[in-house]
């Protein structure tokens, strides 16, 4: 039907007052930048969440309202998506992010022992950030490096055949 295709220019959502954020100005600016970079694309939520994470390392719970408002979603919907993906954190990560592969191939070549070693060396549990903010340790399920396991990433960079000794060298930047 013709009239249904005749899309009207939608009123700019900004005219409906956006919720005020109780966050530091540079974080607010980063969130706003991520929103305006992607808000007009279809399915903009994941790109915005990725962009916010890329800019500030996490998705502050206080940002959920402004993202929801910009995309005309409910806050609950955005919270549901954020909580679904481990990579969308709700708190700032450690200064160094270490991920250890726990998928089958790496497990078969000693990943479990490596995890144990990592927790001891870094003084932090899996899925956690150390109290001093120095490091976050995360499991990951397959880095596509199965022939060269056990595998880890340190701040996004992939390493294979990681022995405890090699692990210690790779995370030397993190104080024990």
């Amino acid at each position, binding site marked *: 039907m013709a009239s249904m295709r005749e899309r009207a220019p939608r009123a700019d959502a900004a005219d*409906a007052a956006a919720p005020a954020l109780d966050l530091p100005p540079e974080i607010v600016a980063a969130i706003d930048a991520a929103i305006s970079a992607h808000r007009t694309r279809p399915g903009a939520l994941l790109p915005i969440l990725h962009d916010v994470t890329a800019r500030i390392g996490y998705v502050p719970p206080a940002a959920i309202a402004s993202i929801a408002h910009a995309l005309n979603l*409910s806050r*609950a919907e955005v919270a549901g998506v954020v909580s*679904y993906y481990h990579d969308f954190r709700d708190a700032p990560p450690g200064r160094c992010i270490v991920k250890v592969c726990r998928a089958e191939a790496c497990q078969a070549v000693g990943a479990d022992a490596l995890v144990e070693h990592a927790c001891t060396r870094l003084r932090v549990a899996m899925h956690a950030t150390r109290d001093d903010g120095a490091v976050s340790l995360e499991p990951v399920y397959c880095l596509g490096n199965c022939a060269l396991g056990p595998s880890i990433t340190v701040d996004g960079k992939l390493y294979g055949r990681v022995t405890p000794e090699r692990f210690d060298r790779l995370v030397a930047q993190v104080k024990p």
Partner: protein
Amino acid sequence: MYSIHENDPGTPIRISTKRVVVTVDGTTVNVPEGTSVMRAASLAGVNVPKLCATDQLEAFGSCRLCLVEIEGRRGYPASCTTLVEPGMKIRTQSPELAKLRRGVMELYISDHPLDCLTCAANGNCELQEMAGKVGLREVRYGYDGENHLNADKDTSNPYFSFDPSKCIVCSRCVRACEETQGTFALTVLGRGFDSKVAPGTTSFLESECVSCGACVQACPTATLMEKSLEDGGQPDHVVATTCAYCGVGCSFRAEMKGSEVVRMVPDKQGGANHGHSCVKGRFAWGYATHPDRITTPMIRASIDDPWREVSWDEAFAHTASELRRIQSKYGDGAIGAITSSRCTNEETYLVQKLVRAVFRNNNVDTCARVCHSPTGYGLKATLGESAGTQNFDSVDHADVMIVIGANPTDAHPVFASRMKKRLREGAQLIVVDPRRIDLVRQPHIQAAYHLQLRPGTNVAVINALAHVVVNEGLLNEPFVRARCEGEAFEKWRAFIAGEENSPETLEAVTGVPAAHVRAAARLYAKAGNGAIYYGLGVTEHSQGSTMVIGIANLAMACGHIGRPGVGVNPLRGQNNVQGSCDMGSFPHELPGYRHVSDPAVRALFEREWGVRVQPEPGLRIPNMFDAALDDSFKGLYVQGEDIAQSDPDTENVLAALRSMECVIVQDLFITETAKYAHVFLPGASFLEKDGTFTNAERRINRVRKVKPPLAGLADWEVTARLAAAMGVPMPYTHPSEIMDEIARLTPTFTGVSYEKLDRLGSIQWPCNDQAPEGTPVMHMQQFVRGKGKFAVTRYVPTTERANREFPLLLTTGRILTQYNVGAQTRRTANMIWHDEDVLEIHPHDAEQRGIREGERVEIRSRIGATVMRALLTERVQPGVVYTTFHHPESGANVVTTENSDWATNCPEYKVTAVQVRKSDSRSQWQREFDAVAVEQAGLLPRHGSDTAE
């Protein structure tokens, strides 16, 4: 949890002309194409076990309990998500299926508390029922594994609790919030075993939840549970009845334990609501047993005297003698009555009969005077019938909706959910409102255009829209030629095409950009189906009737009338405002909108009643007040209306009340009006009487008595006994006999009877020989008046204009959790959401006046002043302020003026020129209000602790 003893075929009904024949466990069944295997099985008498499926929601396929076998297919498909195909042979029972279902159930129960006997859902728990059906005998996994049994219960909502330890994550609540209510306040947080249902990251009370109750209804366990059920236990019987709040007229099942209501559950069979509800009807019924209820008749000689409790007999004798004394002293015309849009059709009919047959005059009016009287006038003049043209279901076929001066998500929430559903399906929305209502933009809803006009310029906007239709060649000429009066149309066309009606000319008046008006007009005119919905923002103006006519003109010009999906739809404010108008509550009209000057109509009533009916119209409400101040009107019987709070220019109303010699108030509570009354007759709540309400779609719904009246008499009995005391017996034994009398006398009701209402569930009038089961959509073949009649609608600015002294325009409205004067909702836990009225003001206007958020401000008009707190918001445009009127001490109507609609005297509530300034004390009027409240409270009988019933 759904209401007790309700059948649930598991997936929604599908409508199709194509039929599919399948066999289920050997039984052949013929169902519409698109039906699920689960529903087909149910229709064949086989109930497949299920947990995540319900006929109120689309199939989801997550619980894996409803697996079946289908001949020729591999595996065990879920019967909820599998659609029937011709010749399918379905098996619902086999050893393999039994094993699979038991295995699934074991997993559920391994993470579910085993406290069934002390659980609030005991007796109506789907999980328990399914465990029984699949024959669960052991849980091999034990109960010691990882679980959610220690999850915290959220009791923040006043009406229901959320106990995630009992949750099976079937998502029924999440889907109900999305599909049925359209709020999207619930989600599943996390993933895998950690998945949990949650209202976002906050408590229920702080979340986006609007407490409609759909999630609570959808929950198959005790996770979401009414607190009243937790406290009171499961009901023992159910009575089908109708909500007494707004004009949507939702059908409810009152779940009862003896004469105590345990909970109210929306009825899936309800023609208006199809099983949905809002926070008011679902939960806010506690006022019916509030200790403030007055349950004994009271009289007093003067309003400064203490009330004296008397027997019903004494009350009737006293009232009758007072009214007759006034009539003999001041004349027959010195008394009158006001009927209530909150009472039943039968009760309203009786009050107007009392006036016409016993008072011997036509001094009867109704609260519709102050809300939808222009609708009656305007639609009668153009289309021929004083009622909306469609049923609510019609919205499912609308492609473009225009919402004018209505705020459905607050005032008609259940219908708003239907609108939102259709909008999510792709229909387009145009909002015409001075304020940015929630419908303009909210999750998944975005209006194509919001024509944010200045208050008081409705007619200019509707003329501009029609101007575009006419001048851009968008007229539906074949429709107009075939269905409308040619001469009147040509006259209108010549008028509307004039440059004075162009959007460009009127932009300066309305404040709406001409380009938006043009685009909106094109969108509506070119729509396959265009529907107009409107509210009191249309009627409560000096040109209210003109605007209603303008809306009808526009709909006729575009041919958007006379079929599903289109129409002119007034959203009625109160449960029975349509009915009270139908029942002859107006001083110039007998039931069925027939003028009292028509001798044939009068003869009909005179024969039935055995009295002479006066041919001259009586007094309208404002005329009653004027006459009272002139000392020619001295006695008033007010049934269920609080004129002292709800009518404009409060101080004038109070002066009129003070000047009367006998004011009789029949109500549940000591209302503001009752403080000025000489006789108080205790009213009965909707739970305490039989009758019918007629909703905004002309649907006559049954109201059924679930408990005896607290004061012993239903409202219709009170009126009948008063008539008898005045010498005219009205010997009805049941309201059905009153309806029979209405049917005998009213052409649009001739086919209505309680027997038929019980059989059909509800009836949309006209119901007569031509339409024995009622009329969902009107004006299909031709208009009720024959040809539709265009009328010229010249825009005349209101005299109430912003000026230097009063530079802002005040407009008023309602909010979701409170209802009108608040007499009911203020006596419920809804107070948690709105415990005072506030003034919405644009930040620019506030800044100019040095007003900060939450500060007290005085709102002063040329009539009066009141003080309330300020809320700074861009919802209102600069130059416009807005408030609600749910709390008497707010005094919104102290400020509103005596201006009214030229045709019907409907007050111009929606435009008052005001000044706003900071104030640190209550206004003079509010101080007087406080004094009267204290004084009158002291005049009530003292009972000590036994006042609470």
